[in-house]
């Protein structure tokens, strides 16, 4: 077998493996990055985020208040569900985390589709008080 054919074969194998991996694990994130949100006097330190479609963001939430807070990332439907829900503690799903007073917690979220999302705290009265922000997902 000559060199050219051997090289092409190697490339083909590599591409096949990559295709299999991506199909098994879903979309490979364009990139990953960490964003730190600080909560002080029941206000997030950031009110708006711009992210790229396919990005996976790790949210690190630092609570500087003497009361509990949480971070819920999602569309309007997700936010409405949490505003009326009774789930006391979050952390099992991507983009949802409870942050006790004076603690730091993190959660990650992959932005698959372009559009407008929200991040907020839905403990009683917190959303109406102003604990909310927007996320623009750009393609």
């Amino acid at each position, binding site marked *: 077998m000559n060199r050219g054919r051997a090289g092409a074969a190697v490339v083909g194998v590599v591409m096949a493996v990559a295709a299999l991996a991506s199909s098994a694990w879903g979309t490979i994130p364009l990139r990953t990055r960490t964003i730190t949100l600080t909560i*002080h006097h*029941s206000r997030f330190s950031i009110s708006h985020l711009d992210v790229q479609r396919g990005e996976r963001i790790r949210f690190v939430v630092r609570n500087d*208040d*003497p*009361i509990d807070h949480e971070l819920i990332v999602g569309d309007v439907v997700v936010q409405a569900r949490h505003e009326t829900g009774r789930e006391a503690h979050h952390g099992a799903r991507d983009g949802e985390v409870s942050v006790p*007073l*004076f603690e730091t917690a993190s959660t990650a979220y992959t932005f698959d589709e372009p559009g407008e999302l929200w991040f907020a705290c839905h403990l009683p*009265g917190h959303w*109406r*008080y102003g604990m909310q922000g927007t996320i623009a997902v750009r393609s």
Partner: protein
Amino acid sequence: MRKMLCTAVVAFGLVAVPAMPALACGGLIGPNGAVNLTRTTTLAAHYKGIEHYVTAFTYAGGGGEFGSIVPLPGMPSKVERGGDWTLQRLQQETAPPQTAGVALAARAESDSSAEEVYKTKIDALDITVLKGGGKSVGIWASEHGFRLPPDTPEVLDFYAKRSPYFMAAVFDSAEAEERGQQIGDGTPIHVTIPLRSPWVPLRILALGKQAGERVEADVYLLTERIPNLLPSGALAGYRVERQVPASRQLLEDLRSDKGMGWLPASGMVLTHLEVGAAAPEMRYDLAINTNGGTPSRSRAGLPPLPTPPPPPPTVRPTVEPTPEPTAAATLGPQALPIEPAEPASVRWPIVATAALIPLAGIVTALWLKRRAA
């Protein structure tokens, strides 16, 4: 499991109940010893350097427990059950139309819970006086099952800058049921605080309220002299309904109530304030000065007035000298170059020379004449 407490009533008894008829004081007391008020009512009296703070915590009933956290202007020397009719008697004094005439830390923050400096039980109320900054009081509240509204961190910090003392009051629901307390029944509390300059927490009344809600309350002041108040004016969020000498009858009625014997029989001024403001506007407290001076802005939680800029330094006007014409022609062939300004410094040698020449001639002539003689 941690008990969940809701701060349903944060500062004072604020429950709408039917107005009671204007009966004798005894008729206004419930059979279980509870008081019923038409709306939030507080007495802040200041006499001989002591602030007496009388308010009522309202039982909200239900299966849960309800608590309140109240900021205190100073460390109390005593917390006891308030008189049975003091607050209603004051309401009666100012209720229209039968009114008789005329009528209260920034500290180093730690990561630990607030210090419990005083504990007592009054009827079904567990009272704890806390000392600490906003952070540590918040930790204590969390450890004791309080679910605090979102504006709590900012409000706690607002108060902790001026006083590290807070009072937590929690109804023991089992005890309340044993005592036959009904929903809406209030338990009056009398807090005695040695304090030179009194102030009354008002911003706390807005805690937990939504943007469209209002703060409505009655605040009664009893002071030895007419008090100056800050803030004041149309935008202060309250109206001075009356400010009159307290009648002897009023003082006699109040003195006869439990714990109120410290009141003198005469010589007090009654001020009735009707508090009414949108919750977001209630961002200050009431500072009081009874010595004829201006109340402290810091005690009212108001920012200091901006410092006026210093006046510009005084500058003496200067007279610009006009340029001199050249003097070279008067001095002969060796003319000096033309120089502007400072004519005096150039002029005097010329004048002196011009004066000396004839003088020398006169002296020479006299000498020759003498010699000839």
